[in-house]
């Protein structure tokens, strides 16, 4: 392709917590320092820093990236923030890639941070200002409506039951029991999910991931440099991102076309023709249980409406042929918006190196895909990693 090969060589993250004492800066530092320590590098070795952090309204700090810059190691370094709402985390992973692939820099530190607990009375209220101020917010628009609409349409068009979708929540929360940073790992049943409080039908409380505080950091290096730092570099094989229309009435919610476009961009770069066969592990974005299925279809890991069959057949369990969200995902670990996306990339990184501890997927996975989604429910960001 004419661009340099880039690898991820180190990773670090904080616990995902409902409320952290650390300020956003301190969270960013804790994750970034851990990432550098994990590959034996110091701040001097870092040429540039990219930051991913979602709405300023969560931390209630305007110009959040500037505020976080010293904690992210960006003092007197080239520094830029990417923002794509919930899609930010995986976009940051792509952003760091092209800093190095372009030949401009050799080592890049990618940091994603979120401190949602600062937003009161509830972080969900921060979305109040993201709707169209004329045609949408006067109706008292709530974020949950969008998810409920999408879930309803997806379920109705494909004829999938709420009980079956609840299995995703059960799987991911259980997977997260083995993640040391998880906020809401638990051993629950489908009945627990079905009996939980209905917030906006068909969305129930246990269908939803919690709001979190947390930070994740990854260290990227160009090929020659990566090989000196570690003997287990994880290569970035493909990146993709795509946006769809803001006007919710103009796209059909049952299928995320924009995720498919982003995925095709990444797969083309990686030379993948049959993702359902060539991808060993996947981390589709799962802020809600049905989203894992919805996004996995967008990632072309199966046909439309077929994700539920793979789940029911056990294919997507950690011991299955193609585990989805072995980390526990947002549903189990927590959803610190931007940090969640990067947490999924970090998970693929650790899995491909065989360093995921109790979460390790058997069989030496060689290729993984991580995906994030969000913004005004219309962005898909995808990264393919391989060894």
């Amino acid at each position, binding site marked *: 392709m004419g661009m340099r090969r880039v690898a991820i060589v180190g990773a670090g993250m904080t616990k995902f917590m409902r409320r952290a004492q650390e300020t956003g800066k301190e969270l960013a530092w804790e994750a970034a320092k851990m990432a550098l320590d994990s590959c034996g590098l110091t701040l001097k070795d870092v040429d540039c820093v990219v930051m991913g952090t979602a709405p300023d309204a969560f931390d209630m700090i305007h110009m959040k990236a500037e505020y976080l810059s010293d904690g992210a190691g960006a003092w007197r370094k080239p520094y830029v923030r990417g923002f794509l709402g919930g899609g930010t985390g995986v976009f940051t992973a792509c952003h760091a890639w092209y800093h190095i692939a372009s030949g401009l820099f050799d080592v890049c530190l990618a940091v994603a941070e979120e401190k949602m607990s600062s937003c*009161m009375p*509830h972080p969900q209220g921060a*979305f109040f200002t993201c709707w169209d101020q004329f045609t949408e917010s006067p109706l008292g*628009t709530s974020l949950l409506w969008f998810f409920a609409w999408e879930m*309803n349409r997806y379920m109705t068009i494909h004829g999938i039951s709420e009980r079956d979708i609840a299995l995703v929540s059960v799987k991911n929360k259980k997977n997260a029991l083995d993640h040391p940073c998880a906020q809401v790992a638990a051993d629950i049943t489908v009945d627990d999910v079905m009996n939980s409080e209905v917030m906006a039908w068909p969305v129930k409380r246990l269908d939803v991931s919690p709001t979190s505080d947390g930070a994740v950091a990854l260290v990227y290096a160009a090929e020659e440099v990566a090989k000196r730092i570690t003997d287990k570099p994880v290569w970035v094989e493909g990146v993709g991102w795509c946006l769809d229309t803001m006007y919710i*009435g103009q796209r059909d919610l049952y299928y995320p076309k924009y995720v498919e476009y982003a995925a095709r961009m990444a797969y083309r770069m990686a030379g993948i023709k049959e993702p359902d066969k060539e991808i060993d592990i996947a981390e589709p974005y799962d802020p809600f249980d049905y989203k894992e299925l919805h996004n996995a279809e967008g990632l072309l890991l199966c046909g439309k409406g077929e994700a539920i069959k793979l789940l029911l057949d056990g294919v997507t369990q950690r011991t299955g042929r193609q585990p989805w969200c072995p980390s526990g995902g947002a549903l189990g670990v927590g959803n610190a918006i931007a940090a969640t996306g990067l947490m999924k990339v970090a998970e693929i990184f650790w899995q491909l190196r065989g360093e995921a*501890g109790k979460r390790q997927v058997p069989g030496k996975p060689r290729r993984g895909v991580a995906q994030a989604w969000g913004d005004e429910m219309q962005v898909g960001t995808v990264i393919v990693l391989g060894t």
Partner: protein
Amino acid sequence: MSEKIKVWPGTPLTDEDFAEKRILYTVWEPNLKYAWDTGIGYGRYFAELKKGKIIGTRCNKCRRVLLPARVFCEWCFRTVDEWVYLKDTGTVNTFSIAYTDWKADRIKEPQIPALIEIDGSDGVAIMHLIGEVDPQKVKIGMRVKAVWKPEEEREGAITDIKYWKPLEEE
């Protein structure tokens, strides 16, 4: 990674830590007010709503209707070709029954927000609320009609339509 590291950074707090002021914190209440201009497209859209009509625009190149009315087509990136009046009836594309509001507080009477495909637009939907119906009877594909505020109460806003109710068709 996991095996070697014993302590993961992060200091979680509980609600009691805040209630009993075990840790220090600061509160800020923003007082930011805005005055937005609606623009040309929405300006006409709302002026028509005040008159009890729904208007969109049409792009002839892409052969589609834009709703709410806008003056440029984002697909082919040119100005639209004409204004087009639409009906105030439609089909439910998707809906939800909401028991919590935008702040995540519980509400007594559930709301039924929905995306309603407006007749005449070839399937373009707008966001609104459904009313005057038992929530359990709402279905995707249901036909609905707008219930308008009386003329004197309309202000030129999306709320000039109070909600949409089931349409009885012969």
